[in-house]
């Protein structure tokens, strides 16, 4: 089961009971629909309702990105695993402040442990990292004492800030700079990579949630604000250090992405098409990498591991088994 990344411009059509892409020079390519889970659209693509109907039938999600690599939105076909039972349970847990906080803390615990795991990997070589490690560890202890979501979000912000400061030490930033985390728009190259990587992860998680009973609109750590998917943001927190940050370290330390892969525009710095493609390829490889799952007692890809994480949360929500976030060994 594979995603498709559309960088070219053209038209997406339903043809002969499968999906086909007609590029600007009228060249037609067929995409095996039975093997497709999601489509990421970066180019200027036309599509019609017939395609959307077909994609709904085949349970395929579409994710749109604009010219700058910003996430625009998703086509999330109608729910096919409807379960009013799970939905009411999910809402019940959200409305109960104690239960909500409990789940939110779990996401943050997983995220922080995975961040620490990343730092530890480099701390033998880079001495200065041990100070950061200690300060994150002390912030980590505060998570358990947090009394409400606002406090928790505050701690999260502090942890992230400290964590992102280590990036300048971990990656070879000789020709890139990274002073502080900036968003909307990212002000330098490293921030552009983090923003792009995070949005890829958010959509990858969203596509996995689609395969379960959970409703992506109801998140626990991130506040629901009437229009946005938030559960995928929550689950993505756990995987950001494992999938996005490690992709960035690899790409920069191998010099696969350099200054020439970025463009300036809209008062910020963004990935150029070459950079986006390199990033997507490496990110995809990482999602396909398999690791041993304690839960299933066999090797699974990171992509499946995200799905397992959603199932674990579902179990927690229906009071079957307490959720324990994924922590990389």
């Amino acid at each position, binding site marked *: *089961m594979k995603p498709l*990344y559309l960088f*070219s411009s053209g038209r997406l059509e339903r043809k*002969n009971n499968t999906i086909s*892409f007609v590029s600007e020079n009228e060249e037609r*390519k067929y995409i095996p629909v039975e*093997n497709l889970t999601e489509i990421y659209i970066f180019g200027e693509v036309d599509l019609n309702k017939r395609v959307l109907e077909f994609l709904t039938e085949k349970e395929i999600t579409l994710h749109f990105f604009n010219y700058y690599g910003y996430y625009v939105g998703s086509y999330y076909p109608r729910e096919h695993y409807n379960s009013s039972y799970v939905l009411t349970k999910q809402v019940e847990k959200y409305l109960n402040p104690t239960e909500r906080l409990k789940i939110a803390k779990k996401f943050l615990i997983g995220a922080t442990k995975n961040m620490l795991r990343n730092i530890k990997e480099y701390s033998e070589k880079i001495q200065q990292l041990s100070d950061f490690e200690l300060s994150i560890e002390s912030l980590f202890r505060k998570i358990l004492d947090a009394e409400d979501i606002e406090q928790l979000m505050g701690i999260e912000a502090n942890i992230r800030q400290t964590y992102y400061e280590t990036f300048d030490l971990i990656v070879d930033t000789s020709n890139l700079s990274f002073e502080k985390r900036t968003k909307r728009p990212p002000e330098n190259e490293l921030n552009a990579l983090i923003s792009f990587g995070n949005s890829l992860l958010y959509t990858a998680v969203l596509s996995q949630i689609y395969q379960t009973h959970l409703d992506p609109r109801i998140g626990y750590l991130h506040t629901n604000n009437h229009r946005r998917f938030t559960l995928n943001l929550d689950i993505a927190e756990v995987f950001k250090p494992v999938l996005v940050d490690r992709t960035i370290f690899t790409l920069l330390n191998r010099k696969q992405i350099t200054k020439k892969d970025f463009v300036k525009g809209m008062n910020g710095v963004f990935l150029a098409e070459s950079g986006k*493609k390199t990033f997507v390829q490496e990110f995809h490889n990482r999602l396909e990498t398999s690791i041993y799952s304690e839960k299933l007692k066999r090797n699974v890809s990171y992509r499946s591991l995200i799905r397992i994480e959603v199932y674990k949360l579902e179990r927690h929500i229906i009071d079957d088994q307490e959720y324990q976030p994924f922590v990389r060994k």
Partner: protein
Amino acid sequence: MYIIMAYDVNEKRVAKVLKIARKYLTWIQNSLLEGEITESKFERLKAELSKIIDESEDSVVFYKFGSEKLFQKEFMGEKLGPKLFM
């Protein structure tokens, strides 16, 4: 599982076979397709094909591999195969 599919069927059924196969695999050359597929999807592909082909005169061959890494591809001319980017 990764499969390579080759078929030799009566002219009348070539288009029909191709149409079915394209839903599951990537077209490489005339009568040749390949791609990653799950066991269950493979069974469905075979079931769909068996409704079309005439077993007395047509033949379809599948080469099965555990993964794409287990064989080598060598090209002369254009490099073809399933694509992640388009």
